[in-house]
């Protein structure tokens, strides 16, 4: 019966198409732009929409290694199991999309397009991100969420409703492994939550010897240490029509935390008054600590003079101390600023942002992603993935064959997460925005930006029960200084 129904529909559609279909040589104007992107097998269906006015869409997907899938409706929405089967069958091959759209009673067929299915699987469970309204000083709702990238399932890890009045900082797992992660709450009951294998501590990382709580953190691969920068963040606002917000630090230092007893290793070279030290990251082998350093200027008046260099120092995982510091990218000498260094977990690459100035590239339209080859030291802009709008926070998948990054390319304000793959030579593929069931509706209707995205190897386990009491009890582990 069902088959008969399908045959009837197909026959009607075929008749309709053969009668009045217009063929155009152009590629279809689909949203999101998935034409020519490279996807991992098993990713959530790459549903897409045609422009407004097209009330029906018919899509046939043909795999280069076999298999076929069809979708019809108001937008292209693929059956998730069939989509997985098709992409897995065609790993290392291509998918050919034939698209027809109906507008004002007439069908149009565009030139077919291709989507590449990578032979590199993306085995991670999904990604985590913070969702918040992109704006100014106040946020009614913030939450840290996890999304299964193989389906459309999203669930909150923690939302601000559970910790009212506290601003929620970045969720940081250890190289995508959620068995060890942390995030910060800012506000009257602020603390850093550190969770190891389900056991959690609420830590006050501010001490008499430091200027505040740690903010931007990065785990040492062995899991005993994390490095963090202390950033008293402020915002100012521009008057013109090019941009609105400027985020800067009044001061900043880098410290290293021993999570065995929550003691801080302080290095005076990373806590200077004349310089701003920020945003540390460990190399994949844990033997090097990268961080940013900029000469301090009067802010906000001279905020455009603050340009960060990329620094590094050998790290001794036995003592938590640093060796001799050297400059990796002397960006300030060349008149720009480096931010968010992120070494790949295979030790091959280091991705970072480049902007005219500042540590916070999200509000800098010119901010782009750059890649450093850690074997040769060569750097280059990632033109394959950059856009005229801001590209900012980025992170690697657990096997470092994929990376994600945030971009404002959709409308210049609302940040979306894009995924791209990288090969052994450092060539990146055309990125695709995180798939959604009905992408145009989802992305157009949402009033949230996706902040600090990261891959997560497996599902994050966070117990909400008791969280409210723990936050407001103010029972904290006080960090000490070694």
């Amino acid at each position, binding site marked *: 019966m069902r088959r008969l129904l399908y045959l009837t529909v197909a026959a009607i559609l075929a008749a309709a198409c053969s009668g009045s279909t217009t063929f155009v040589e152009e590629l279809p104007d689909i949203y999101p732009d998935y034409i020519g992107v490279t996807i991992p097998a098993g990713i959530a269906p790459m549903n897409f929409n045609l422009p407004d006015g097209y009330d029906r869409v018919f899509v046939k997907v043909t795999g280069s290694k076999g298999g076929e899938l069809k979708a019809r409706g108001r937008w292209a929405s693929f059956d998730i199991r069939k989509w997985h089967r098709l992409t897995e069958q065609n790993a290392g091959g291509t998918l050919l999309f034939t698209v027809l759209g109906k507008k004002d009673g007439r069908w149009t067929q565009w030139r077919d397009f291709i989507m590449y299915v990578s032979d590199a699987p993306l085995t991670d469970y999904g990604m985590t991100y913070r969702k918040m309204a992109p*704006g100014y000083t*106040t946020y009614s709702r913030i939450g840290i969420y996890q999304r299964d990238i193989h389906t459309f399932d999203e669930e909150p890890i923690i939302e601000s409703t559970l910790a009212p009045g506290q601003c929620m900082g970045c969720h940081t797992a250890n190289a995508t492994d959620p068995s060890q992660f942390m995030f910060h709450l800012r506000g009257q009951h602020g603390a850093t939550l550190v969770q190891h294998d389900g056991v959690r501590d609420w830590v006050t990382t501010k001490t008499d010897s430091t200027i505040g709580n740690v903010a931007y953190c990065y785990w040492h691969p062995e899991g005993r240490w994390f490095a963090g920068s202390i950033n008293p963040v402020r915002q100012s*606002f521009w008057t013109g*029509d090019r941009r609105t917000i400027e985020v800067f630090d009044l001061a900043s230092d880098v410290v290293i935390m021993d999570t065995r007893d929550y003691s801080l290793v302080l290095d005076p070279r990373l806590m200077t008054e004349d310089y701003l030290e920020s945003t540390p990251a460990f190399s994949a082998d844990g033997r090097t600590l990268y961080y940013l350093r900029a000469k301090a200027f009067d802010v906000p008046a001279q905020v455009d003079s603050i340009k960060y260099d990329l620094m590094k120092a050998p790290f001794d995982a036995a003592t938590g101390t640093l060796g001799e510091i050297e400059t990796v990218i002397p960006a300030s000498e060349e008149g720009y600023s480096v931010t968010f260094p992120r070494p790949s977990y295979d030790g091959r690459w280091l991705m970072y942002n480049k902007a005219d100035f500042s540590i916070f590239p999200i509000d800098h339209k010119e901010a782009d992603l750059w890649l450093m080859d850690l074997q040769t030291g060569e750097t280059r802009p990632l033109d394959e993935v950059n856009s005229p709008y801001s590209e900012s926070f980025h992170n690697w998948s657990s096997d470092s064959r994929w990376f994600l990054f945030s971009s404002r390319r959709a409308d210049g304000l*609302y940040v979306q997460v894009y995924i791209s793959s990288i090969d052994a030579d450092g060539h990146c593929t055309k990125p695709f925005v995180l798939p959604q069931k009905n992408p145009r509706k989802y992305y157009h209707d949402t009033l949230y930006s996706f902040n600090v995205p990261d891959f997560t190897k497996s599902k994050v386990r966070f117990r*909400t029960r008791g969280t409210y009491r723990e936050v407001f009890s103010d029972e904290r582990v006080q960090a000490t200084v070694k």
Partner: protein
Amino acid sequence: MSSLLGAAVFAFWMWLYPQGLNYQEQNQLFLFTWDYFAGRLALPGGLADWLSEGLVQLFYVRLLGALIHAVLAVLLQLGVWKAAGCAGREKDRVLYALSFLPSLLMLVHMGDVEVLMSFPVALLIAVALCPLFVWAGWHRIWLIPLGWWLVGPVIAVPVAVSCLRGRKWSDLVMLLWLVPVFFAQYRLLAAQYPPRDALFGLNYYRLVESLPALQPVIPAVTVVCIVLCGSGLRLRNQLAVDIALAAVLVLGAAGGTALSYDKDTYEVLAYDWLIRNERYGDVVKRAAKYQPRNPISACSVNFSLFMERQLDARLTQFYQCGTQGLVLPSIRDNLSDITSAELLWMMGMPNITLQYCFDLQESIQNGRKSGRFMSRIAECNIVNGWYDRAEKYLDILEHSLFYRKWAREHKDMIADEASVAADPVYSYIRSVRFRDDFITAYDALDLMMAVLYNQNNNNFMAAEYYSAWQRLKQWEGGK
């Protein structure tokens, strides 16, 4: 008597406190979309919340707002009286005046501007369900979780009424059944909320972590009223008791509202409402009679004086609190900066207006959006030429009732740059705004006004505000 209650409540909102209607309306944005409906139903009490927001959007028209309040008050009173019939026997109903108590208490409670309409709506539905619960017997086992999901914890009202009516062990079981139902709902639907908020209602009050005393009291009193009204008490002189009760209720309601409706808060809300409706002269008249001594009122009155071309002449005749009485710094709440945002928009500072309006909207503590603030956010984006962003907001507003037409007109407008350029407001703001891009500072706002005036001598608002700023600075320094 019910009509009298309706008339009194109608008059109360129509003429005494219409600003309360405006405040409620501007702190939510009801959308006619499935997602909006589903979003409300995702939490316990969601149906009552959705229905109430559907009603509150009508507060945009004062008459409708007052009418809705009146109808709800009357329905609640009639519902209590009707429920009393099932709690006892229809013919045994007594103490008619007591059936008015929940409605009057609700009126007193609504004096707190953060009380949401979903509370009276949920209570009304709960009271209306009393006859069903009395009749339902063991069906209550599924009616209770369903009811909790749809209207929230006030579902305890019909459960309690049916329990007191039946007085069987099965009724006690049903009462106890509320406990696992709460935990199940909390676990499934409200795990991201503090347990206390989930227990007393997630959407009855706008502020988080706050529990006004009357919120648990009113449902409890409602149960007592239903039971007493249906108790069949035989009184010697029932009429006299009713009259005495009515007198106590009227006096209590008058006293309660006098205490509950904070004069300064409602005066500030009145200024905001009048300014929204461009009735600047009325603000000045009100302030001449009584003006709260706080910066928000000073800011509103000074702005109204400017709009009435009296700022220079009458500045010192009204309460002043230094330069922040002219323009307030960024304050994280959903009220203080509205007037500042308005005047900075007119003066030619769309980016600060954008910041203020964004923060105002995000300061609505229950996470709702605002048609009023979102419209201005869209306008700021239009002035900046950021049409993609503006379109996003306009598309959302297009799903509302009262902002739909405006949104559609503006969507058409941004499709054609010439239309934007020809718009008198946007072209004016573009002509007077800063020509240079620099970082703003509240402390240097007077200098920024001077820059605006020097750029464009037609910007007399910047000049007048600059002048007033200097006078207030000197005055402050001279104190």
